[in-house]
Structures are given as C-alpha cells and as structure tokens.
C-alpha cells in the first residue's frame, strides 16, 4: 500500500510538470501550427531565471512570479523577429529555426551561468515532508500534485469563459475565418507564443527545487512532452492532461514492475496510439 501510494504520487508529480510543458506545446501547435523544438529550452530558461531571483531575493515565490514573465518577453521577441517571417513557408524552416534556437539557448545559459549544476531550495513552507502511512513523502511533490489540476482548471475556465480564450479557440479552429471576422491574428499569435512560453517557464521554475538546474535540463522533458502531445492528440487540451498523467504513471509504476522495458514503454505506447488512433486519444477528426 505504501509503495503503491508513493509510486502514485511520484507519477502524478512528474506528470504535472509534463502537463505544464505539454500544454504550452500543444496550444502553440494548435493555434499557430508551429512545432516548437525550443520549448524545452524555455522550460530550462524558466528554471535558471527562477534560480537567479532566488539568489537575489532569497525567495522562491519571487522567482516563480518574476522569472516566467521574462521568459515570455524573450518569447515575444522570438516570435516577432524570427518566427513571423516563416509563416506560410515550408514547415521544415520552422523546425530548423526552433531547433537552432534550442542550441542557441542551451549554450546561452552556459555562457551566463556556467556549466555547473545549481540547486534551488524549496520554499520553507513546502520544504518538509509528511507521513503517508509508514513512509515520509516530500511536501513539495504533493504541492505539485495539487497544483497541476488547479492550473488545468484555471486554463479550462480561461478557454471556456473569457474573450481571449474564445478568440484563441476560434483561431485554432479556422485561422482564415477568424481573420475575416476581425480577429487580429498576428497579435494573437504573439500572445499565444508568449503564453506557451510562460507556461513552460512556470514548469521550469517549479521543477527547479527538486532537480538540479543545469544546461540541457530541457532535453529529456521536451522528448517526453512531444510523446504526451502525440498520445493526447496534437492541439488537444484534455489530451495533454491525460497524456501527461499516463506518461508520469507509466514512468513510476514501470520502474517498479517492468524495469527491463521501462525506458521503452513510452515509445511502445506512442507506436500503439499512432497505429490505432493516429490523431491521438483526444485528437479531432478532420
């Protein structure tokens, strides 16, 4: 029972981080049609900036609050000056650009902060652990488990009830039609890209207290996020949530019960989904 609960929480907390990254990835893809390879680097940048603010102010919350908007500002510049000239051109150009950005950002943080690993302490209020039956479990991880669904709920409300949310969904469904009825699509695109980047950076800032901050920390998570997005359905919002949970749980229970194939499990699932439901679990039929 203890082991089961511990595995459950392990899987859920990792899944929630995956969810934050995947949701940005899937929104950007759904609305803009851009596969953003640099998304993992924005996650990493969020972690580094959070760490920098923690160093300056000593408060994790300041880092969580101030870091991600800065990443969003970087994203605005990326969209405005690099991505925009490529809309409507060959998709491979976008892939090349975002891949290049990833390399550029990875090396950029190394120039600024060096190659060493950095450690961010969790905030005092969340740094202890709680007893679950006979075992103790870190409070910070439980915080992540709770936070994930809250963020999901907030996003769902945003997409369902606010004007901006509706505009986003409209543009995602039919870009041309949205433009015809007067939606300023270029501004919307910038906003979407920045929003996705902000979510990734929040994920990075939240990841900082439980893993070391270092260059290339985005590499693992971007690969798993792509799997999440494909499993859940490209551009699907509930798909990202379910996909992230599946992958997180597969990771934790797989380690215990199928250690020999654990590494391959996400890919096996990916292949199975692509064969049976090529559009993903929640993908819209065209």
């Amino acid at each position, binding site marked *: 029972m203890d082991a089961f609960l511990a*595995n459950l929480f*392990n899987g859920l907390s990792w899944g929630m981080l995956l969810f934050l990254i995947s949701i940005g990835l899937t929104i950007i893809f759904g609305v803009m049609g851009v596969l953003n390879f640099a998304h993992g680097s924005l996650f990493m940048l969020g972690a580094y900036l959070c760490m920098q603010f923690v160093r300056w102010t000593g408060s994790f919350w300041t880092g969580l609050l101030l870091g991600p908007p800065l990443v969003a500002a970087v994203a605005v510049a990326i969209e405005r000056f690099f991505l925009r000239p490529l809309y409507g051109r060959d998709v491979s150009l976008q892939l090349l650009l975002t891949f290049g950005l990833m390399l550029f950002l990875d090396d950029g943080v190394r120039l600024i902060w060096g190659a060493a690993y950095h450690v961010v302490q969790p905030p005092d209020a969340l740094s202890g652990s709680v007893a679950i039956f006979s075992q103790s479990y870190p409070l910070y991880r439980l915080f992540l488990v709770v936070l994930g669904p809250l963020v999901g709920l907030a996003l769902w409300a945003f997409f369902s009830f606010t004007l901006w949310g509706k505009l986003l969904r409209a543009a995602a469904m039919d870009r041309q039609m949205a433009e015809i009825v007067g939606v300023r699509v270029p501004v919307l695109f910038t906003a979407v890209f920045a929003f996705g980047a902000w979510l990734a950076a929040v994920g990075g800032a939240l990841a900082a207290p*439980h893993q070391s901050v270092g260059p290339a920390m985005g590499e693992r998570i971007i690969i798993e996020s792509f799997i999440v997005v494909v499993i859940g359905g490209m551009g699907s919002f509930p798909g990202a949530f379910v996909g992230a949970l599946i992958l997180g749980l597969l990771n934790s229970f797989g380690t215990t019960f199928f250690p020999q194939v654990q590494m391959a499990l996400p890919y096996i699932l990916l292949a199975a989904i692509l064969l049976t439901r090529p559009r993903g679990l929640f993908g819209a039929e065209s």
Partner: protein
Amino acid sequence: MRKEGLLRVLVLLVVSLFFFAGGGQAADKPVKIGFAYIMSGPFATYGQFAKQGAELAIEEVNAKGGILGRKVEAYFEDTAGKPDVGIRVIRKHVFENGADVVMGIDSSGVAAAVAPVMTELKTPLIITHAATPDVTGSKCNRYTFRVSLNINQNIAMAAAIAADMKVKTWTTAGPDYSFGHQSWEYFQTYLSRKKPDAVFLPQAEVAFSPAATTDFSSYITKIMNSKADGVLISLWGGNLIDFVRQAVDMGFFDGKREILMTLGAATEVLYALKEKMPTGIWVGTRYWFLANDTPVNKAFVDAYVKRYNVYPSYNAHGAYAAVKAYAAAAEKVKAVDKEKIVEGLRGLSLELPVGKITIRPEDHQAVTDGVWGKTAADPKYPIRVLQPIRKFTGAEITPPVAETGCKMN
C-alpha cells in the same frame, strides 16, 4: 625577368608549404595535445574541471621550458558524452589539429568506442576519467593508456568496505549503461569472494535509470520498498546530484540502510550539493585533494585553488596527471614521436598529486592508489569532506593482468 620573379614566388611557396605541413623537426614547432571531454549537457562541469586541470599542467610545463624545449599547445573538443561524437572529435584532433597525443574521455561508452580507433590513427590516447575495464582489458591496444582508476579498482575498494558492514542484502542504483551494470557485476563478484554469504537482489529488482533521468523518485521508492539493507550507488554527475537531493527529501538516508557511493566524492557533486549532502555516507573517488600530504600534492592543490578558487576534483587531477605523464614519457625517450611516446608511457612511473603511479606495460592501466571516505562536515571547507579517510594502495586494488583479458598486440 618576370619569369624569374614567378619562379621565386613558387619556390618560396613550396618551401613554406614544406615547412608548415611536412617539416615537423623544427625546434619551435609546438607539441599539440588534443583534449576530448564532455563540455555540454548534464555532465558539462566535469569537462570544465578537466580543462582547468589541463591548463594548469600545461602552464607549469611551459614555464619550465616546455617538453624537450618545445611549447605545449592545447586543443579542446566536446564529446557530448556520445560515442559517435567522441570518434569524430578524436579524428578532428589527429587530422585537423595535428595532435601529437589525445587525452580525456569521461564516459565509458565513449572510451569503449574510441579505443579501437586509436590503432587506426596510430596516435597515443591517455584516458583520464572513463572507467570501463574494457579499454585496458578486452579492447586494450598499443595506443590506449589510462592514468586514472578503473571500475575494478574502485569497486575492489567498495567491496572491501562492504565486507566490514553488517548488511544482509545488497541492491544498486546506477546509470543504465555499461558503467552502471559493470559496477554492479564487479561488486557482486568481489564481495562474494570476501563474503560468500552476501545476498544480491536480482536484476529486475535493482534500479538502473537512463542517463537523461531527472526525476529519481520512482527509483528511490523502489529501493526503499525492497528488502535490501545495503545500496551500491554508481550514479555520477547530475544524476547523482538529483538522486541525492530527492532521496534526502524522501527519507532515504534515515539510517535504515548502508550506502556506498562509488563516485560520491567528486567535488563537482559536492560543490553543487554543499550541506544537502548527508554526512556519514561512504563515498569513493579517483583522487581526493586532502588524502595525500606529499609536497607534490600540496603544490598542486595550492596552485589550483589560487588560480580557480575551488578545490580540484578528480577529473581536474586526471587531466593534470595525463599532461605530466606525457611530459615524463617524452623526457624518458627524448622524443615526441608517437611510436616512441608509446614506448615511453609503457612501464612509466611518476610522482603525481595522487601519489606514485605506474603504467603497467602489459595492459596500459595505471596502478594507482585509491581513496574512500565517510562524508563529514568541516567548517573550514565549503563542501563536505572525507572523515575518516580510508586509503588503499594500487597493488592491493588492481586486479592482476591475467584477469583483465588484455592481449596486447
């Protein structure tokens, strides 16, 4: 007249071409060392430390007039920890940079891929970090040398310490590639020799994690819920840092199990973890800056701290040692010719900060002393130090040549 001028230019060109490309005997031509380390990704700080150690050694050699009167020049390349990239950068060193010798290699995977290529490149390679027994065992060859400890030597020490513990059942947490698996295999072999009743968990119940893992919670949970009361941890670098931090939070270090970290005393790791590193844990290393009182070690540590403001790691020492070994070999044979250097390195003995090492001529593995110790807090140091320290001589931890499987050709 014009023709003559043209001819003059042509002669000049040919002569200069010959001088730059072919020459090689000119006294002012520098000795070129190509270094190949991990400079990017989650293990990049190992490359940084190695670079510092290499630069310090080269500066010292050059200050004393270089090698046989020739200045030493360094080239650094990033292997990214990937075997294919490793082979590429080694080739680049030899063909483009014109390296007289290649040094470095962090990952065992890269080392195993690169070593066989050296016979083709006919260039000496001095490994300073990668620990796979294969490169001085089944894949040993004329051009491949190692000045640092290998897995067998390190695990022999782990087994000696484990034999004194009251542990019934052992498990492991290690990286899911050859290094982690070989560490676990040798640990079982060596400990069983000393303690025939030692029990080891089967393969499906131990915890091997992919190198890209950042969340170790499921592995930690698995070990904590197993019946093992002893854990051999062969994780290193960023993996080890993440593991320790998450394990601390999950109550892994609650005293209910004995722990051996084969590479826990890497200063790269200790600086990142600082007081988050639990005390009273047995940790191993290939070099510990406080383990040796010799003047050579003191001078090295002082110069290193003065220049870089941190204590040298074992990887910094490895790079430093390789440069010094190369210089000593060149002085011994009075040449930097690649074939002669091979002869010079064979059987070479020299005094290093780690102590006296001897490169065995039969398998090219250095017989070098090793250190394990228990982590302890000391207000004089910004990082955890080792207290007590347990030193092992090279002779007692190095397996005999017959056991290595090396057939030198």
